[in-house]
């Protein structure tokens, strides 16, 4: 490849439209005759449906259709999710049947002339509920005396697993220190700025259905909706335009989508549903709620001998189509040892169903492995009386011990974790920090520092998938298709569905360099199942940097070869003597021999036999690419905080990320991904919590209650790149998840360090001001543990 734009922060192709208000998001789709949908939703966490009276809503002026399950079931099948060994996966209807299991569960759909009228009429639907006791937390769920969400399963425990590696019993017996802790991660939600939405355009004549939606995986939407609606796939076309963020939330098949599609078919008119924020916060999916009990043994030198983990995951009420619950626990299990020397390891997992919103993937869905490990390591370092950086260095695999397999069977390569850690420590001035900290403490100022190391599979690879034990979406090659248009411009078709990541820019950078044309002559086409290559997964799992790039580079090389061969045939010259530079084919050493891409386009489409020996016209290639083993990204995060122990305010003084994602296609886009992820990780610790009352009532259904951080809350995030050069044709690794994986550990470690004079151990990831004050002992919490002021 002649590197010209790859590796540079070229401006984004997406930006001129986005910055002038000319993007096209799903709510911007307006079709002739379009009607609007609203949903009647359960106000109760757990209740039996005794009756639903829709008469007043149906006769309300402007209402076209009201459906409950009893009608919808004639037009749509039930929904379920991917299965996995030992996992109970509930089957459920799009609109509630017999029982509601979470606040906000859709009970009826109302379709009307306008959204206002639909909402007015929805308020007239009378539903009689017989309240059932709600199962609201994981301990309740595991209690045999609690009500059961799914009597057909007979228990709220939907998955249980036990894994043993090495011999933890012997390792524990020989330990110098043993530490036991319970770490709790609270419920959070993705909260993309654009809520979910769908516009269904059904043609009564042909029965074809064009579905505009905001989704990470348009082909999965098409496949799954066709199945549920019992329609042949050839009738469905799914189109996504610009997407206002997702972070994992827009990856499942929504119950609302099924009801809207069925309504559009019944009415023979386009129907639009745009989720409002209260719906998004309550029902679009929540994440992260996991508790890990850990027990760790170390020797006198601070070497970790063995770890036992027992994980409980609260999956909420319904399975999300996409990633099964057991997927999360098994990814956490497989990745927990990371780049550290750990040879004796037990991991038990339990997943439970509760009367809360469905658990969905949220940026770095397995983040608990990093948070708990790096939190635990600070606790262990303290127990051993060893500096936390030194503790990590002692436990990382040495370079001469790599490559090898981790204890869970995951391929480990030579890592740069030692280097990223030392660089981060040097960059923040760790050697002088402890003296500054002591001096600040003497003035009553509480500074703290926290580190976090992690390696991120970006994308997932065979030994990891084997360790996990299953893969929700089959590990299939990523495909790209590249066409020379008759005017010589290039169209790249990808199965990626970018939603902020800038793939229209980065993939075009790769094509431009590989083919030898200007970037502006390449257009990236995504999000239209009518033209893009099939893949169950669009954009997600930090897969694009490696997989989409591999497919794109491969197809670009094929097209370049075809173009050169065309010129070579025409000129009766060896293709090896030709070059393609800046959109022109030139014969080396013969300056007069020159052919523009515009001429190539015309020739390829007008002279049968020139482009293709079978006489067909045009130049168009497909390429499938699958990446190999150990495609790791890696980072060290370091956070310095100042904690006001009177008000509980945490000020982030420095936030440093030293990251290594291999080579970068567009460094500014990499920085943006890292910083955005860090911001979400910080937000989860200091602000956000999807809160439920003891009756399962949802308490954070607005941005007044579910707090997102502002520009005043997120500090400047310093990103340092270490560009290793993976020995690979495709040297790029993903960075989508990493920021969010590293930040909770770095920040909570820093806060614990700042509060060391209070003897605080942080076990609960959510640390809003009142919790900080409680931890310092100024307030004795009714629910949390109380701590007494031990003097500064």
């Amino acid at each position, binding site marked *: 490849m002649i590197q010209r734009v790859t590796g540079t922060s070229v401006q984004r192709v997406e930006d001129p439209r986005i910055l*002038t208000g*000319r993007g096209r998001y799903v709510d911007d789709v307006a079709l002739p005759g379009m009607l609007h949908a609203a949903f009647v939703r359960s106000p109760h966490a757990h209740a039996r449906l005794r009756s639903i009276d829709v008469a007043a809503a149906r006769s309300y002026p402007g209402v076209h259709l009201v459906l409950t399950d009893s009608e919808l079931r004639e037009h749509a099948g039930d929904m379920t999710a991917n299965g996995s060994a030992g996992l109970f996966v509930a089957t459920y209807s799009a609109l509630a049947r017999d029982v509601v299991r979470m606040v906000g569960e859709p009970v009826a759909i109302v379709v009307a002339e306008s959204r206002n009228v639909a909402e007015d009429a929805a308020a007239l639907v009378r539903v009689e509920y017989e309240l059932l006791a709600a199962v609201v937390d994981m301990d309740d769920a595991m209690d045999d005396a609690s009500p059961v969400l799914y009597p057909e399963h007979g228990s709220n425990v939907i998955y249980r697993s036990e894994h043993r590696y090495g011999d933890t019993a012997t390792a524990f017996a020989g330990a110098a220190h043993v530490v036991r802790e319970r770490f709790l991660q609270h419920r959070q939600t993705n909260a993309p700025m*654009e809520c979910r939405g769908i516009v269904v355009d059904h043609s009564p004549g042909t029965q074809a259905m064009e579905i505009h939606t905001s989704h990470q995986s348009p082909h999965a939407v098409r496949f799954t909706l066709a199945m549920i609606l019992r329609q042949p796939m050839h009738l469905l076309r799914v189109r996504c335009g610009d997407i206002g963020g997702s972070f994992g939330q827009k990856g499942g098949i929504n119950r609302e989508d099924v009801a809207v599609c069925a309504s559009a078919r019944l009415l023979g008119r386009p129907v639009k549903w745009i989720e409002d*924020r209260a719906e998004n916060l309550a029902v679009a999916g929540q994440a992260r709620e996991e508790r890990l009990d850990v027990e760790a043994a170390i020797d006198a030198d601070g070497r970790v001998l063995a770890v036992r983990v027992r994980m409980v995951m609260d999956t909420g009420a319904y399975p999300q189509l996409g990633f099964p619950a057991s997927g999360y626990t098994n990814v956490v299990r497989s990745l927990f040892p990371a780049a550290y020397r750990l040879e004796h390891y037990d991991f038990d997992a339990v997943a439970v169903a509760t009367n809360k919103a469905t658990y969905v993937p949220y940026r770095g869905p397995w983040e608990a492995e990093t948070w708990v490990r790096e939190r635990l390591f600070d606790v262990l370092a303290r127990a051993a009386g060893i500096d936390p950086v030194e503790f990590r260095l002692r436990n990382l695999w040495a370079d001469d011990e790599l490559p090898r397999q981790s204890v869970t069977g995951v391929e480990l390569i030579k890592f740069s974790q030692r280097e990223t850690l030392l660089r981060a420590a040097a960059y923040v001035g760790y050697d002088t920090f402890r003296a500054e900290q002591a001096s600040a403490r003497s003035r009553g100022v509480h500074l703290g520092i926290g580190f976090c190391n992690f390696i991120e599979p970006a994308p997932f690879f065979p030994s990891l998938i084997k360790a996990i034990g299953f893969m929700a979406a089959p590990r299939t090659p990523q495909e790209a298709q590249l066409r020379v248009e008759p005017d010589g411009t290039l169209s790249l078709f990808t199965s990626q569905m970018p939603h*902020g990541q800038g793939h229209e820019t980065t993939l075009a950078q790769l094509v431009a360099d590989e083919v030898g044309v200007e970037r502006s002559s390449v257009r990236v086409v995504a999000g239209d199942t009518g033209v893009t290559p099939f893949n169950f997964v669009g954009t997600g799992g930090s897969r694009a940097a490696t997989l989409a790039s591999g497919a794109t580079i491969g197809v670009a090389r094929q097209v370049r070869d075809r173009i050169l061969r065309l010129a070579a045939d025409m000129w009766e010259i060896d293709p090896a003597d030709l070059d393609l530079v800046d959109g022109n084919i030139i014969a080396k050493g013969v300056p007069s021999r020159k052919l523009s891409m515009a001429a190539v386009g015309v020739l390829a489409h007008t002279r049968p036999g020139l482009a293709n020996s079978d006489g067909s016209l045009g130049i168009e290639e497909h390429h499938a690419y699958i990446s190999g083993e150990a495609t790791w990204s890696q980072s060290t995060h370091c956070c310095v905080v100042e904690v006001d122990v009177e008000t509980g305010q945490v000020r982030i003084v420095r936030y440093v990320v030293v990251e290594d994602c291999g080579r970068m296609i567009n460094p500014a886009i990499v920085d*943006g991904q890292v*910083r955005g992820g860090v911001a979400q990780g910080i937000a989860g610790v200091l602000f956000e919590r999807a809160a439920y009352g003891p009756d399962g009532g949802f308490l954070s259904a607005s941005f007044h209650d579910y707090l997102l951080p*502002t*520009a005043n809350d997120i500090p400047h995030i310093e990103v340092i790149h270490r560009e290793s050069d993976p020995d690979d044709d495709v040297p790029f690794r993903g960075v989508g998840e990493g920021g969010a994986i590293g930040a909770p550990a770095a920040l909570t470690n820093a806060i614990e360090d700042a509060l060391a004079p209070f003897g605080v151990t942080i076990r609960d990831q959510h640390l809003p001001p009142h919790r900080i004050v409680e931890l310092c002992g100024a307030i004795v919490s009714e629910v949390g543990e109380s701590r007494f002021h031990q003097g500064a």
Partner: protein
Amino acid sequence: MSGSVTRVDVRLTVNGRDRAATVDVRRTLAELLREDLALTGTHIGCEHGVCGSCTVLVDGASARSCLTLAARVDGCAVVTIEGLADDASGGLSTLQQACIEQHSFQCGFCTPGILIVATELLADNPQPSEEEVREAISGNLCRCTGYDSIVAGILHAAERGS
């Protein structure tokens, strides 16, 4: 509802053009812009005045169009994201160009509101400090960027003189 006024006539200028519409009294300015006037650049992110995506200028001052009734802007001058581009200089304002150069935005959903408040800020205070920029956009939520790149874009525009 019988006997009460349910529809009202609204006349206003939007991005310098005279516009008129007859709307439900409960129609919001955001709905008027997006649905009646087909200006979909203004985004609705929360409908309760927190996220700021729907922010527009009403008589030069930023306002949440999701909480502003259309009837209230009768006689007002409204500027939306579609009105920020300076057609004389090739379609992008200095602020827009600066934000493109700094990779300020990712998904683009919060963008209209932030560009509007940044335009207001730079009109009032052409050389803001970083702190002033952060304060000015602190009523607007962005979920993608962590704000650094947005702050950089606005400061870059200030350097250039927008």
